[in-house]
């Protein structure tokens, strides 16, 4: 390593900062409408094609959804202008922290540590068992 390398590295870091700022200015993310039940079910079908959906709860801000599929909870959460999906045991979803209208679900995955879903109430009384 020599000084030229560090100059190049410094310039590259500055360029990264400038490009990120340019991206923020451009506002050219994917146009994603908030989830409604229809869209949430379509996403669930795409992500979990073999799972039967028993019930769906869509986030009040449309930025996620939770579904029950037998003994599993299927979780969809917004990531930037896209979505990520994971499945966890239903019992884990039921016992997730619910505070100030936000359900914080531990997804137990290093690539998807947690999902935050805005819901009016949790757990659902009729499916809590």
């Amino acid at each position, binding site marked *: 390593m020599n000084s030229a390398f560090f100059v190049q590295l410094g310039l590259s870091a500055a360029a*990264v900062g400038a490009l990120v700022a*340019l991206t923020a200015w451009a506002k050219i993310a994917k146009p994603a409408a908030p989830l409604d039940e229809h869209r949430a079910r379509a996403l669930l079908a795409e992500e979990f094609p073999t799972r039967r959906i028993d019930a769906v709860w869509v986030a009040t801000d449309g930025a996620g959804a939770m579904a029950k599929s037998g003994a599993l909870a299927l979780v969809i959460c917004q*990531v930037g202008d896209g979505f990520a999906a994971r499945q966890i045991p239903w019992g884990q979803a039921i016992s997730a922290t619910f505070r100030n209208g936000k359900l914080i679900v531990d997804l137990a995955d290093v*690539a998807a540590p947690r999902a935050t879903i805005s819901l009016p109430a949790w757990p659902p009384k009729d499916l809590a068992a």
Partner: protein
Amino acid sequence: MMKAAFDPVTLATPFFILTVILEIVLARFRVADARYETKDTAVSLGMGLGSTIAGILTGGLIFAATVWVYQHRLFTIPMTAIWAWVAIFLLEDMTYYWFHRISHERRFWWVSHVNHHSSQHYNLSTALRQTWTGGVNGSWLLWLPLAWLGFPPAMIAIQKGISLVYQYWIHTEAIKKLPRGFEAVFNTPSHHRVHHARNPIYLDRNYAGILIVWDRLFGTFQPELDEEPCRYGLVKNLATFNIVRVAFHEWIGMAGDVVRHPRHALGYLFGPPGWSHDGSRETSHAIKARWAAAPSAAPVEREAA
């Protein structure tokens, strides 16, 4: 550090920056089809910057190994001969095909390469989303036979750089299809969009570096289909923009599987991504098979054949 006097990647760096700016600005004014999300772009560019630093840490070992093998070469191939450049172009590109295929089809190498595929976007910044751990898992060993044949280490490094620079510009949605003759021979934005897509029909396809002919030859070619728009990212997309998690999540996942199931360690290390000892997960092969068996898949599959 393995650097040739002529380093195509270093020379191309200003071109990388300018073309990302161009793609963003053209998309902003709706002249080009491109989508950028701020955090996603930050991660992609941060991974690119980090990979240059990570490369230094392992570059010395790789260079020393290449020189050592070259000292035990079969032939002495001159860097000044045109035939030698034609030969290394073809041999390096085929080596890249197999490196890339192994990087997708075996988890031990996928843990590094997954980084490049972890964006849900496909734009020029995605090209720069490079692994930090590529030097760790030994995939560079695949290039050593070129040194053993007698290609000088500098020549190998230059050709690898040319390949990397070529693969940069194909990471875009702004360029649709190119003339048929070009699409038939070369890797193109269209072919590589397929490679980055998570649609079942597109999984584990189009591994080419520069020449798409390797995919046609080895049975992994899949054209982009108008009726099947590419959905980018991973089968299980990341739910974080934490760059450390992005860089190491699959390493941690693999290590966790090995520790939890030591009797099945070989499967978790060298099986395909998604392999599990109890069949509780799905490999690309299983996803494709399930998709192909679904009634709605049939028309698309027919046209792809």
